[in-house]
C-alpha cells in the first residue's frame, strides 16, 4: 500500500497522539501493510482471536472482524463436514475449496472484492501448488492431493497382470505401470474388489487408497477431519497486502456462500453434491458441521506509537489489486467442433490476463474431481490400427483478440503450447502431468482410486474411481466419465494480455474450436454439455481515506 497523494493534515483521525512527531520523518515510518521484510528491527505482537460466524447456515455464513490491529493475511477459516453414510472424500484437485460457491469481502456494506464459482476458480489455481506441497501439506490442511507418483510394477506378480502386494520380481521397483496419486499411502490390493474374481485366487485388483484422515464416513463425529483455508486464498489481494483494521471505521465482514450440498436422489446435475466425491448410484448429501466453523484471526500489532504514526501519515491509502471477474456460458460438445467467438467482457477495463476452461456437465460427485475439472478435447486410441486416420488426439485451437489485435500471430493448437501459455500468464508452471492436462499419451495408471470407510472392522470395501481408461478396449469406452477420471481433466487455458493497454469498448473475444469432445456412452454422436468459465483478471483500486474504504476499477 502507498499513500495516494501528499497526505493532508492528520486532523480528525486518531486524536492528538496520532500526530506525527516532528522528529519523525515519513520516510522513517516502515510500510506496515506491505507483506515482506520491514527494514528496521521492530517488536511485533500477534494476537489470535477465534471468531464464530455471526450467521451460519448450510448455504451461507458471515464473519465480522474486530477493527483492531492489522489482519494477518494468512488467518484461517476452519470447516468440517458432517458424517456421511457411504465412502466419500473431498474432490482431489479442489479439496475443501469446493465448499465455497462465492467469497465476498465487504467493508461498510460495500463489496470490495469477490470471486464467484470459487471452487472452479480454485481448481485452476490449484494447478500451481506443487506436487510436494500437495503430498506433504495440502492433503492435511485443504484436502487436496493431486500429487503424482510412479506406480511401480514390483507389485505385479506375473505378466497376466495379477497383482500381489510387495512382490519383488526381477525388475523390482524400477518399472512403472503408470502414474498414480501419491499421498503417502502405498498401493493396496483387494481380492475380488469388483466381484470379477473368476480366474482364481491370484486375481486381485490393485487400488490407491484414500488416507483415513480424508475419509468422511466415520464411526463418530469426533473422528471427523477438519480443514482450513486462508483468507489470502479467498481474497488473493491479501497475498501482498494486509488489512489495517485499526485504521478502519467501518465494519469488515466476510461472506461465504456455500456450494450445492446435494440430495440422496439419483445422481444428476441438480442432485449431486459439489462438496464431496462418492462413487454411489444415489447422491450423497454433505452438510456442514456448523459447530466446527470458525475463523482463527491473527491480529498484528506494532508498538503503539509506530502504528499511530503510520495511521497519521497515511490517512489516505491507495492500493491496486487483481479482481477476478467470472464470465460463463453453456455450449454443447457438438458445437465446440466449429469455430466459436465469444465476447467475455472487459470493455474499458485494464485486464492483465484471462483464464478459462470447459467443464463437463456430466461430471459430478461420481467423478474423482467432482465437477471441478477442465475437459480436454477427446482422443481416439482404439479405432483401427496406427495408420487409421481416426486415431488421434483432437486439438483445441485458441486465440484471444482485444483492441483489434490477436494475442497470438497464429491460432494456438499445440497442447504443450497451451500449457506454456499458462506458465507465461502466471509466471509459474502448472504442476500437472501430460495425460491429465492434454489427454496425450497413456501415462496414468489404469488402477482405481479407492475411497474407504472407517467402520471399525478393517475399513470395509472401497468404492473405486478408475483413474484412467487405459484398460478399456473400445474407443468409445476409453474416456467415458465412468471409466476415466484423470486424463484430460485439467486442461485450463490462460493468456496474458501483454500489450499493457486498456481494453477498448469491444471487449475481449475468445476464439476457440475443439476438434471433438469426448463422446457420451449413448451413441456415436452424443456429447455432454459444457460450461465455459472464464475469469478476467482486472485491475481494481481500493482507497482507504479517513477510515472509509472505497474501491473502483482502474
Amino acid at each position: 500500500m502507498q499513500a495516494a497523494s501528499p497526505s493532508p493534515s492528520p486532523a480528525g483521525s486518531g486524536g492528538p497522539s496520532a500526530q506525527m512527531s516532528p522528529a519523525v520523518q515519513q520516510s522513517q515510518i516502515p510500510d506496515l501493510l506491505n507483506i515482506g521484510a520491514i527494514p528496521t528491527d521492530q517488536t511485533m505482537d500477534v494476537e489470535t482471536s477465534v471468531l464464530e460466524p455471526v450467521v451460519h447456515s448450510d448455504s451461507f455464513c458471515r464473519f465480522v472482524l474486530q477493527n483492531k490491529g492489522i489482519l494477518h493475511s494468512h488467518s484461517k477459516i476452519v470447516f468440517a463436514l458432517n458424517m456421511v453414510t457411504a465412502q466419500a472424500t473431498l474432490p482431489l484437485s479442489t479439496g475443501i475449496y469446493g465448499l465455497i460457491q462465492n467469497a465476498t469481502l465487504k467493508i461498510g456494506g460495500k463489496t470490495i472484492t469477490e470471486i464467484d464459482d470459487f471452487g472452479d476458480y480454485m481448481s485452476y489455481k490449484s494447478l500451481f501448488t506443487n506436487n510436494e506441497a500437495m503430498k506433504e501439506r495440502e492433503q492435511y490442511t485443504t484436502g487436496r492431493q493431486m500429487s503424482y507418483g510412479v506406480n511401480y510394477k514390483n507389485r505385479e506378480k506375473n505378466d497376466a497382470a495379477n497383482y500381489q502386494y510387495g512382490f519383488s520380481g526381477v525388475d523390482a521397483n524400477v518399472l512403472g505401470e503408470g502414474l498414480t496419486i501419491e499421498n503417502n499411502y502405498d498401493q493396496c490390493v483387494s481380492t475380488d474388489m469388483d466381484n470379477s474374481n473368476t480366474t482364481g485366487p491370484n486375481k486381485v485388483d490393485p487400488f490407491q487408497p484414500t488416507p483415513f484422515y480424508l475419509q468422511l464416513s466415520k464411526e463418530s463425529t469426533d473422528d471427523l477431519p477438519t480443514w482450513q483455508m486462508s483468507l489470502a486464498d479467498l481474497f488473493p489481494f491479501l497475498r501482498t497486502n494486509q488489512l489495517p483494521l485499526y485504521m478502519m471505521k467501518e465494519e469488515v465482514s466476510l461472506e461465504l456462500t456455500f456450494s450445492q450440498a446435494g440430495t440422496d436422489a439419483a445422481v444428476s446435475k441438480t442432485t449431486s453434491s459439489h462438496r464431496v466425491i462418492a462413487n454411489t448410484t444415489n447422491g450423497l448429501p454433505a452438510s456442514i458441521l456448523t459447530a466446527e466453523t470458525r475463523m482463527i484471526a491473527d491480529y498484528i500489532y506494532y508498538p503503539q506509537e509506530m502504528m499511530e504514526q503510520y495511521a497519521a501519515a497515511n490517512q489516505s491509502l491507495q492500493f491496486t489489486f487483481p479482481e477476478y471477474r467470472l464470465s460463463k456460458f453453456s455450449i454443447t460438445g457438438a458445437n465446440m467442433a466449429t469455430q466459436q467467438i465469444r465476447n467475455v467482457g472487459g470493455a474499458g477495463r485494464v485486464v492483465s490476463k484471462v483464464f478459462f476452461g470447459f467443464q463437463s456437465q456430466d461430471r459430478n460427485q461420481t467423478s474423482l474431481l467432482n465437477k471441478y475439472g477442465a475437459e480436454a478435447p477427446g482422443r481416439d486410441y482404439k479405432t483401427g490400427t496406427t495408420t487409421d486416420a481416426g486415431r488421434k488426439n483432437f486439438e483445441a485451437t485458441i486465440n484471444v483478440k482485444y483492441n483489434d489485435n490477436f494475442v497470438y500471430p497464429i491460432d494456438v493448437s499445440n497442447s504443450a503450447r497451451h500449457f506454456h501459455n499458462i506458465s507465461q500468464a502466471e509466471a509459474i508452471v502448472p504442476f500437472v502431468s501430460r495425460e491429465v492436462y492434454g489427454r496425450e499419451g497413456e501415462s496414468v495408471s489404469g488402477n482405481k482410486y479407492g475411497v474407504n470407510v472407517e467402520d471399525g472392522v478393517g475399513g470395509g470395501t472401497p468404492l473405486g474411481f478408475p483413474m484412467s481408461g487405459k484398460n478399456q478396449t473400445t474407443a468409445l469406452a476409453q474416456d467415458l466419465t465412468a471409466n476415466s477420471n484423470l486424463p484430460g481433466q485439467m486442461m485450463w487455458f490462460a493468456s496474458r494480455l501483454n500489450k499493457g493497454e486498456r481494453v477498448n469498448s469491444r471487449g475481449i473475444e475468445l476464439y476457440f474450436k475443439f476438434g471433438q469432445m469426448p463422446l457420451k456412452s449413448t451413441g456415436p454422436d452424443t456429447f455432454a454439455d459444457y460450461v465455459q468459465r472464464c475469469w478476467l483478471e482486472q485491475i481494481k483500486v481500493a482507497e482507504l481515506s479517513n477510515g472509509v474504504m472505497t474501491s473502483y476499477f482502474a
Partner: protein
Amino acid sequence: MSNVNLEITPANVASDGIISYKSGNPVIQFIIGEQQRLLLGQTIRLVGKFRARKGAGDTAGDYVVEGDKCHIDGRLGIYNVIDQLVVKSQSTHQTIEHIRHYNRFCSSFVPVLNALEDQTGHLSESALTMPNSSLAKESVLDIPSQRQTGNAFCAHLPCGLFNGANKIPLSQDTGVGGLLVEIHLAPDENVFYESDGTGANISNTFYELFDVSLVAEAAPMPEGMSVGNTMEYNSISSYYTSVNSTNSVLNFNLGLSRVLGVFANFISATAINNLSHNGMATGPIVKNTTGVGQAGIANIDQVVFTKGGVRFPLEYNVDTTQKDQATNSVPDGQVLRNFLSGLRPFSKLGKSGISLNNTFLSKHEQTNAVDANYITAEGGSVYGVGVSYDGISGDGVDFSRQNFGLQMTSGLDTDRPTAVYVFVHSKQTLVFNASGVQVMS
C-alpha cells in the same frame, strides 16, 4: 508499442514439414529477424510434435507401437534429439553461443535441477520427460496416435543466453542484429536403445519432428532508450575427450576468464550411437560388462581438480569411500556434492531429482542382459564429477591463461575407452555495435 508473441517457422524446412535426422535434414534453423525489439530469452520455446517410426512407409508396421522394444531416455524427453544448440547473430552469422553434446548436457542438467515431481509433471507436458523407462515408453513412444498427431512438445532451450534475465536487443544498430538459432539433431542411434541390450530389433527405428516452430515474446525498445552496447550472460561450453587408464588426466585450455563451475559425465565409448545401449546414460565408469550391480564398475578412488597444474579450488585430494571400501556401492558424498555444485552452487540448489535410488554405483551396461540404466529407478543413474569455482561473488575464476585440469584415479584397468563430456559454466560478455558482435570470454 506493446509486447508481441512471435512464432517462427524453420527457415530450412522440407516441403512436407517433416524433419528428421534420417532423411538428411539434421539441422533446423530459425531466424529471428532484426527489429526494434528486445527478445525475452526466457520465453523462447521449441514447439512441435515428435513421433517414432520403424519404417519409411505408411503402414501400421512403420510406426512404433506398444510391444516394440525401443526406448528413449525418459529423463530427457525431447532433449534426446538435440545434439547441438547454436545461437548466432542473424546479420553477421557470428556465433554467440554454441553448446555441443547438448543432450548429454541435459542428461545431467535435467535430473539434477528438477525434482521427480517436475519430471512427471510439468516437464512431461512441455518436454515429454518421464523419469521411468517403461513409463516413458508407454507415455511417448507407444502413443497410439503416433501417425496423426504424435507427441506435442513446447520445450525451453536451456542455455546461457536464453536463461539470462537480460533482454536481448534485436536491432542492428544497438543490438545483435537478429538471431539465428540452429538446432542440430542427434543421430537416431543415440536417441533410441533396445531394452534387452541387443539393438537388433530396432535397427530401423527413427524419429520425426513435425509442425515445428520457435515461439517467443518480445518487448518494444522504447524510442531513445539506450541499452548500451554490451550484455552479460552465462554460457555453457562443452568439451569431449576419452580416458582409458587408471590414472585419467584431462587438460583443457578453456580460454575463459570467468568460469563459474565445471561438471563432467561418463559413458563407455562403445555405448555411444549404439542401439544396444542408452547413449544418454550417465552412470559410473564401466571397465567390463560381465556381472551385475557394482561388478565391473571402475570405482573412482580419487578426484583432483587443478588450475595451472595446482590443486584448485579444493587444495586437497578428494579420496572417495570406494578407495577404502571397493565394494561399497553408496556414492561418495563429497564427489556427489561437488558434482551438484558444478551445475548450481550447492547452497542455491533447490529442487533436485537426485537420491540414493539413482546415484548408487550400479553398472548401466551388461552383457546379454537388460541395460541396467533401463531398470534403474527414478530415471536412471545420475553420476558425474564436478566442482563449483565461485559460489559467492558470481564473477567466476580466470582460466584464460591457465589450463583446467581434472585428474581421476579409477579402477579402469581394462581396455575400455570411456567418453568424458565436460561442460563449463562461465560468464561472458556480448559486445555489439553496428558492425557486428563480439563475445568476450
